[in-house]
């Protein structure tokens, strides 16, 4: 296959999905992470355990949820517990292998902002806020982040740290006594970044087919570093693309059938 056979969302989703190992317990955010996690479950990781903050444990949705608490999640889960229990018995207890998050804004140390652009008291743009992310970022053994890359979303320093990444780098997390390892990878529509082992600064380690280093530099709000060994992101397989497209088609059909007022 050549790069022409899939779009940038598809390679981003497939690349992220491949980072989820079979049998892992994954606390899933809605949107891109949920799509990639379910792709993984439907391809190489059939025993991936999906937990959503609304309460479903072991969800196996046939179509993608549009909201974090869709009935589809409850119907296909092993069980559904209350939201306090999800955060207390399942996340805080350290049972989550991978916290899988999206972000509005991320900085060079993978700190996440989903709260405000500008000043908190007088925001330029008020974003939705924290949701489950701060404790997912703190307690999950590892955090995987997924978002489209641009100079506006990848900034040198976030206006507001909603959910902690590696703070100002180095061993800042250990000093704070955070239980989890924090972000281990950021998957975008252009590349994969991983924290430098020493400084924890996000560094490009994989570049998607057909993407240039210049494109990545332009889409990053700090002078982005490239690892010594930068690899080419393996292309999505035909099977992965078929499963992903089927999933999206099923999802669109399921939701098209709705009509307002009914």
């Amino acid at each position, binding site marked *: 296959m050549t790069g022409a056979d899939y779009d940038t969302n598809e390679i981003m989703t497939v690349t992220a999905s491949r980072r989820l190992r079979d049998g892992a317990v994954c606390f899933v955010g*809605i*949107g891109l992470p949920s799509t990639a996690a379910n792709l993984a479950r439907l391809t190489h990781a059939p025993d991936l355990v999906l937990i959503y*903050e*609304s*309460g*479903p444990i072991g969800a196996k949705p046939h179509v993608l949820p*549009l*909201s*974090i*608490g*869709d*009935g589809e*999640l*409850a119907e296909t889960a092993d069980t*559904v*517990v*209350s*939201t*306090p229990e*999800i*955060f*207390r018995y399942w*996340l*805080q207890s350290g049972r989550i292998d991978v916290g899988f998050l999206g972000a509005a804004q991320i900085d060079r140390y993978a*700190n996440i902002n989903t*709260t405000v652009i500008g000043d*908190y*008291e007088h*925001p330029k*743009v*008020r*974003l*939705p*806020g*924290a*949701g*489950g*992310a*701060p*404790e997912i970022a*703190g*307690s999950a053994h590892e955090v995987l982040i997924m978002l489209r890359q641009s100079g506006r979303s990848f900034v040198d320093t976030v206006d*507001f*740290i*909603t*959910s*902690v990444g590696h*703070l100002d780098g180095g061993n*800042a*997390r250990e000093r*704070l*006594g*955070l*239980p989890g390892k924090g972000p281990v990878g950021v998957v975008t529509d252009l590349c994969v970044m991983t924290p430098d082992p020493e400084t924890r600064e996000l560094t490009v380690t994989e570049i998607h087919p057909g993407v240039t280093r210049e494109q990545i530099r332009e889409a990053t709000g700090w002078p982005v570093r490239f690892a010594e060994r930068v690899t080419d992101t393996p292309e999505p397989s035909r099977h992965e693309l078929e499963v992903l497209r089927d999933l999206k088609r099923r999802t669109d059909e399921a*939701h098209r059938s*709705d*009509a*307002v*007022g*009914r």
Partner: protein
Amino acid sequence: MAQITSLREAVKELVADGDTVALEGFTHLIPFAAGHEIIRQELERLTLVRMTPDLIYDQLVGMGCATGLVFSWGGNPGVGSLHRLRDAIERGWPHPLEIEEHSHAALANAYVAGASGLPFAVLRGYSGSDLVKHNPNIRFINCPFTGEELAAVPAVKLDTAVIHAQKADRRGNVLLWGVLGVQKEAALAARRVIVTVEEIVDDLDAWPNACILPSWVVSAVCCVPGGSFPSYAHGYYDRNNPFYQQWDGIARDRDRFRAWVQRHILDTADFDEFRRVLAETSEAEQRG
């Protein structure tokens, strides 16, 4: 013992200006009908508590019913912003809104503390988050055994909790299932509890260990079929995703929002009429 009554009566009796109120439901069973009735009765100066404000609080905040909001995620799920909420926070329209902002984990724990009769909740959380700098109700305590530092938040204490459930029996015992969210905790953290339900039955036919609120912790049960539209009621109807998408357009513009609320809520007598008028609106739109 719960009174089985009309939603109009229940809101009139059990919600007052200035109250601290939670209308809960985590994307599922959101009590929209009750939210509309609060708008119809033009309640004021409410402090609203809710993990995910959703459209229901976009409507209440946009109509100026609230002066305070305690929340942890304020977006339109799967769509984007809550424009009325943003307008209130960013530009103080229709009037300023004081916010207390938490993470889901903290607010869920705060509900548990409220339901448990404790003054505060302890959690492992917030480390490194700037929320700590802006919310004086996030503090830190040390474990009296290990010395470990943990976050603390005050318990949620409500004047009135409002939830929607699938069923109640004629004595007012309430059964809900599916995505449970924090509804049980919200009800048990409140002095007064209003429950709207899809149906009232002779026998709940509940399974073992079902999530039930016994009649004696509920103030009023109101039968409002479809009362959580456009969210969903597991086993009864699905989430109406198109409405969530259309809301983005309605709520973006102050005048259009006001006109929509006037026509669909203020000028309707109850939730049944709201549904009828809404259906007319969408037919008209389909005709173009």
